[in-house]
């Protein structure tokens, strides 16, 4: 092989390498969106179910409606404003023009998070409540510079003499603009519109900061769904978004300049024909794109208004934490319109409730966070007269709830679970170890490189505090330091500190033992069927964390009675059963439990005997000081 060929080969290889690097992640997602299995590692066959599910989900469709409507209006308004601005800027003198263009470019270079936060602050400062209109205003704001940037070059190309020529031939300024200037800069204006549409469609950060209650765009929706593991319908949705954005970009860049034939030589017939074809194709594409945009907007508008009602309930819940048909049924039965909003972590939810910019009626935080909210006087007492179904909740859980809600006045348990050790029976045997039964088994050197720990501070310290015989709510610095030393000692044996991947890695047989939430078990065992190993869950004998997520009503709720109706509805055994089947986290509802198959009732991972929970504790809010001590010590563990 000669040198030139080799060089060529290396070049090609490099190009392919770069392309794979760029597109492999997206391709992976696309492939997974057609995967029958929910696992990220197993291929279970081809299916379109996730796409069907996506189109049937009212949450996703609502988010789609918001996204499209906002993108459309924002693009339209910013195109008009941007075009007018560009014309103004173009006619300025050189210095003011340079300065103005600089000012125009800053928002584009500015970090989005700064833009997002400052917009949010501005809205709050002027007393504008966050919601649809604030997202729209923000999107218009950040789209304008892009429109200006795409119209400007076209304007520069357009000789100012064409405008003067039109005036010269008798047209007034307005006529001259619409008859001559606008058609001339139209390609720039159209691509500005599509660019703005794409940018708005795509935006997450700014939307995240400026959105209010019950408003989600696709990007914020996907973000809030991340917490409990992304459902494959989200892959389907992401695939659709990617393809849409790709299509828009292609159209935007599709040969907008057709007129650059040299002036001296008349073009040949072939060139002209080619140009005409390109021009026609471009026009057809633009028309098709605009048509699709309008169709999508009107379709979702129809859906939206077909469902609109006035009696409202604002719900703030974890992503993937309810069977959506339950919401629909509640709306049908009560005539209350549910505005459903999602959060990803307790820490994200808390400041939203504390700020009170959005008045939620029903929220579903975790134990320690409920305690913090009670201490900070953010919750309203629930009127249990309105919740007769409270009888259905096993008194044992109400008893446990007293750890964070001492008088059972503020919260109604919704789901619960434990943290335990998941192990691969085959691998454990191969390593010559016995099945784990104590937290200390995670310090067994036989498991070197086979241990997965939770990458979250309280869970990690729990694993060390419990075997030391201390409370998992310990705030004693000495006890915590001992736990830290224990964790550092364990570090050489740990394969990784992870959150979601415990599930996938264990399924793939990559590790022998891992710390995991019991809620994942039902789902995991389903997927592990047919493998040559079993995944077993054990609650260590020293005790563990028993966590409870409960419904509460914030003090500033506007529809407290509706919230109580909602909580009562969720306590109905048939409804609780449906939610259990969807979420697969253990239900505290006795009525629902009684309706379960015998096999599930016996599932000790989901519904352990109370005896085994003797030493289990509920996380409590430890105060800011203890919080930072925990974080500091955890940092020391991670950095060693």
């Amino acid at each position: 092989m000669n040198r030139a060929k080799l060089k060529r080969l290396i070049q090609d290889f490099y190009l392919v390498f770069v392309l794979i690097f760029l597109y492999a992640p997206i391709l992976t997602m696309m492939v997974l969106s057609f995967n029958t299995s929910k696992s990220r590692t197993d291929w279970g066959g081809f299916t379109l179910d996730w796409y069907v599910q996506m189109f049937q989900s009212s949450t996703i469709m609502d988010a789609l409606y918001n996204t499209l409507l906002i993108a459309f209006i924002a693009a339209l308004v910013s195109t008009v404003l941007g075009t007018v601005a560009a014309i103004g800027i173009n006619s300025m003198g050189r210095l003011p023009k340079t300065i103005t263009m600089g000012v125009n470019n800053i928002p584009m270079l500015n970090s989005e998070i700064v833009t997002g936060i400052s917009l949010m602050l501005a809205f709050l400062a002027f007393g504008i409540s966050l919601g649809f209109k604030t997202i729209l205003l923000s999107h218009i704001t950040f789209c304008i510079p892009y429109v200006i940037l795409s119209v400007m070059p076209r304007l520069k190309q357009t000789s100012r003499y064409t405008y003067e020529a039109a005036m010269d031939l008798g047209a007034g300024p307005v006529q001259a603009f619409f008859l001559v200037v606008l058609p001339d800069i139209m390609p720039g204006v159209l691509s500005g519109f599509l660019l703005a549409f794409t940018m708005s469609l795509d935006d997450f950060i700014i939307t995240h900061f400026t959105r209010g209650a019950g408003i989600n765009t696709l990007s914020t929706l996907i973000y809030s769904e991340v917490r409990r593991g992304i459902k494959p319908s989200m892959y389907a949705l992401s695939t659709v978004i990617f393809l849409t954005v790709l299509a828009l970009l292609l159209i935007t860049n599709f040969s907008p300049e057709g007129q650059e034939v040299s002036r001296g030589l008349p073009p040949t017939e072939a060139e002209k024909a080619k140009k005409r074809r390109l021009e026609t194709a471009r026009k057809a594409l633009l028309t098709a794109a605009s048509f699709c945009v309008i169709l999508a907007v009107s379709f979702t508008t129809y859906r939206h208004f077909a469902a609109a009602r006035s009696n409202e309930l604002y719900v703030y819940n974890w992503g993937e934490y309810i069977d959506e048909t339950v919401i629909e049924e509640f709306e049908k039965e009560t005539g209350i319109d549910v505005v459903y909003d999602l959060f990803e972590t307790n820490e994200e939810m808390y400041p939203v409730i504390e700020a009170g910019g959005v008045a939620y009626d029903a929220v579903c935080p975790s134990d320690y966070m409920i305690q913090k909210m009670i201490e900070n006087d953010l919750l309203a007492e629930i009127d249990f007269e309105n919740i007769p179904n409270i009888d259905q909740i096993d008194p044992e859980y109400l008893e446990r709830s007293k750890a964070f809600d001492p008088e059972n006045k503020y919260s109604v348990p919704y789901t619960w679970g434990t943290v335990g050790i998941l192990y691969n029976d085959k691998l454990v045997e191969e390593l010559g170890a016995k099945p784990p039964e104590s937290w200390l088994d995670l310090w067994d050197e036989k498991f070197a490189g086979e241990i997965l720990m939770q990458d979250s501070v309280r869970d990690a310290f729990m694993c060390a505090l419990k075997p030391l015989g201390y409370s998992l709510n310990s705030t004693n610095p000495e006890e915590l330091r001992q736990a830290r030393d224990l964790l550092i000692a364990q570090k050489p044996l740990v394969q990784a500190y992870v959150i979601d991947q415990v599930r996938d890695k264990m399924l793939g047989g990559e590790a022998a033992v891992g710390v995991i939430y019991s809620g994942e078990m039902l789902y995991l065992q389903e997927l592990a069927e047919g493998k040559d190993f079993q995944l077993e869950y054990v609650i260590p004998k020293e005790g563990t964390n028993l966590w409870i997520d409960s419904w509460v009503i914030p003090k500033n709720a506007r529809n407290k009675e509706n919230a109580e109706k909602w909580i009562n509805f969720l306590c109905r055994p048939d409804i609780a059963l449906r939610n259990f089947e969807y979420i697969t986290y253990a239900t505290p509802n006795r009525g629902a439990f009684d309706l379960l198959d015998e096999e599930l009732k016996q599932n000790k991972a989901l519904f352990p005997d109370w005896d085994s929970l003797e030493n289990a504790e509920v996380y409590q809010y430890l105060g800011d000081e203890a919080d930072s001590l925990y974080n500091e010590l955890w940092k020391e563990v991670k950095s060693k």
Partner: protein
Amino acid sequence: MAHPLIDLVHISKAYDGATVLDDLSLSVKENTFVTLLGPSGCGKTTTLRIIGGFERPDAGTVIFDGQDITSLPPNKRQLNTVFQKYALFTHMTIAENIAFGLKIKNKPKSYIDDKIKYALKLVNLDGFENRSVASLSGGQQQRIAIARAIVNEPRVLLLDEPLGALDLKLRQDMQYELIRLKNELGITFIYVTHDQEEALTMSDTIVVMNQGYIQQMGSPEQIYNEPENAFVADFIGESNIVPGVMLRDELVEIFGAKFPCVDKGFGVNRPVDVVIRPEDIDLVEPEKGTLTGVCTHLIFKGVHYEMEVTTPDGFEWLVHSTDLCPVGKTVGIHVDPFDIQIMNKPESEDEEAVGVNE
């Protein structure tokens, strides 16, 4: 005698503090071909744009057919412009381009169609109605721009360096085309160019401008043969401009040699500038010449030879002649009295020419 159609009265204009036109007055008669000639930045285009209504003068008035139109917008003026870069509407066909002005004025369709046909015929582009602008050559686009302007039957056609973007051959063809059009239409043309040859070929009247002032105004022959100052002499054609002393009427001394001439009234022993065109210098035997020098350069130009003859004082005379004088040969310089043009020395560089020839 035709009466003045356009009168510019004491026009001044400045951009960002830089004066472009300073107290300029100009009168244009009906049915003439007037050319504004000068180097770039001399204010000729600004003058045209003020007439067209695209610029407002800072001071002074524009009179059109006896009426003050200083603040009238372009669309209300009875004149049309042919722009430097044609400024055709690229998203329209040729016919739509030409029809633009008529459609704005709501003329009936049959009238518009007739006018399009007539205008295309006039510019020798029959049958181009449905072509696109991009499919035309530069010269064709130029003619469409003219057709688009003249269908509106303006009384004055303003042309801003319309041939500037064309190549030499095309430019010459278009010059004849423009003269023919002007004669057929019988309207006033105001033409801006920096090309002196173009101006000399086409104009009835040339207005030479520099640094916002009119330097000289007159027929092409007057401008060429009797430049009133060094700027005009230098800008129009090539010339030898040498310092001299007017000894008395009809006798001027150049580099110590006495040349008889026909100019009078400059006084006695007065320093002047002397203009001698290169083609007016006769190279003769050394002993017959008024001055002698050595030929130092020789270039063949086709029609004639271009030579440089250096006289002992160091001045290099530019000479055009069909007779060849080899480099190194000593020759005599002779000039006929009526080929010598005497000018007053300017007091400052941008001095305004005194008086304007009618």
